[in-house]
């Protein structure tokens, strides 16, 4: 379980997250939506302490990581997270095989002779085959994202964080990624946090949707309730996204 209490983050004078509190329960798929530049990626980066918050606490399985300086404690907590980056963040100098196996090497005790089999398996899960020996520069945007997803799920994390998982993907791949996120939650009971500006996606896959605006969650509810929200910003966002309240 991830408990976030009074979380605040600023860059210089600009406050990005302002006293946010939310609990993300085991097995939940929690989506954060909102317009670009509202701090969605900042929020998700704070969850694994890629960014250090100004104040507040982030308690992951009972351990507060918000202010700790202990590298080893942080590394231990980060081990339970998988992270899909917005642009994939694949290592340019490594092949697809090495990229996907990277987490296996540093996060698990699996013997390296097993890597090719596991990598092949994870790549098949995201609809890719025979790409193991290619470099990221030889892949399309969509393929990079899928390889990145395979890399994140390879060490079988307890929590998955998705930063704009479908941005830049074609409709077929979007459907595949959507299905995969849902499967990860339903079949493997992986607790997931999805950050997206795609409200339609969030409403379809999430167990709870929260809208981030001006540093605060202006609404956080199950998809059905979210659609009925009387919040002005939510209503406007629904309209802009072309979604009805039904």
């Amino acid at each position, binding site marked *: 379980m991830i408990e976030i209490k009074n979380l605040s983050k600023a860059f210089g004078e600009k406050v990005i997250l302002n006293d946010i509190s939310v609990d993300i329960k085991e097995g939940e798929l929690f989506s954060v939506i909102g317009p670009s530049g509202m701090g969605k990626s900042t929020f998700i*980066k704070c969850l*694994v302490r*890629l960014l250090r918050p100004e104040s507040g606490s982030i308690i992951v399985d009972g351990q507060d990581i918000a202010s700790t300086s202990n*590298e080893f404690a942080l*590394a231990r907590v*980060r*081990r339970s*997270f*998988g*992270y899909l*980056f*917005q*642009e994939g*963040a*694949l*290592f*340019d*100098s490594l092949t697809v095989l090495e990229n996907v196996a*990277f*987490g296996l090497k*540093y*996060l698990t005790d699996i013997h390296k002779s097993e890597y090719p089999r596991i990598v092949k398996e994870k790549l098949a899960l995201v609809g890719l085959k025979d790409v193991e020996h290619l470099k990221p520069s030889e892949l399309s945007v969509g393929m990079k994202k899928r390889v990145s997803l395979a*890399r*994140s799920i390879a*060490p079988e994390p307890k929590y998955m964080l998705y930063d704009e998982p479908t941005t830049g993907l074609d409709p077929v791949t979007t459907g595949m990624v959507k299905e995969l996120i849902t499967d990860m939650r339903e079949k493997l009971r992986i607790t997931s946090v999805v950050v997206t500006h795609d409200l339609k996606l969030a409403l379809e896959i999430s167990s709870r949707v929260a809208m981030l605006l001006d540093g605060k969650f202006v609404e956080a509810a199950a998809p059905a309730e979210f659609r009925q929200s009387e919040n002005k910003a939510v209503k406007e966002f629904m309209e802009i996204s072309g979604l009805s309240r039904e």
Partner: protein
Amino acid sequence: MKHPVTEYIGREFMNLAEALGAAALMLKSVFFWFFRSKFEARETVKQAVTIGVDSLTVVALTSFFTGMVLSLQSGQSSKNLFNEPLYIGTLVAFSMLKELGPVLTCIVVAGRAGAVVTAEIGTMKVTEQIDALYTLGTNPTRYLLVPRYIAFMIMLPLLTVFADFLGIFGGCLVGMVKLDVPSTVFMNDIYTYLEIYDFMHGFLKTFVFAFMIATVSCYKGLNTKGGAEGVGKATTEAVVTSMVLVMVLDYFVSAVLVAVGI
């Protein structure tokens, strides 16, 4: 009321203090991971090739021609003064071993390999690859910085020795062909007047330069901001800073080595 000039100076001073503080923290992290982590052999060898082997040609050309021109100029001056080229071997070897070998090699490596290191780490920073390392159970200092520090500290002294020999060889060649100084006389001048300390003086300096170039290149890379433009800016800053610092440090390290009798 704030004056624009004092405000500018104050801001620059604060920026410098902040950068020095951040660099000190980075160094602390490098030392921490150097002693605490498993040796990243593959990455270290890869960096040693990039920093050392790939710099061989440019270092060879620079040192060879520097030795040649040193020999030519000193021989010509000596001819004008004494009607014959005297102590050419001593002068060329002394200059190459104590100053030109280490300084030129480090400047060339700072411009070539230092730029590569900053650009690579900077690109990783702006494309979130550094963040990805954290999420995949690896500390970037351990995986990226420590191998680069080791590679710089091993390869730069080796490149300097290589440059010293090639420079002397170039000087000897010009002495033979242009100044009619036999190679035996040229080498005898070296053996007679130079000591092992002269070699050690230049050799020891390269460790300081290597550490400084690694620090500047890695620091600038890790603090890159603003996409491709930021990578270009960070790379230029790293190269310029390293080159200037090589010259500045050269005086101070030389002064210390002279003071301790090396």
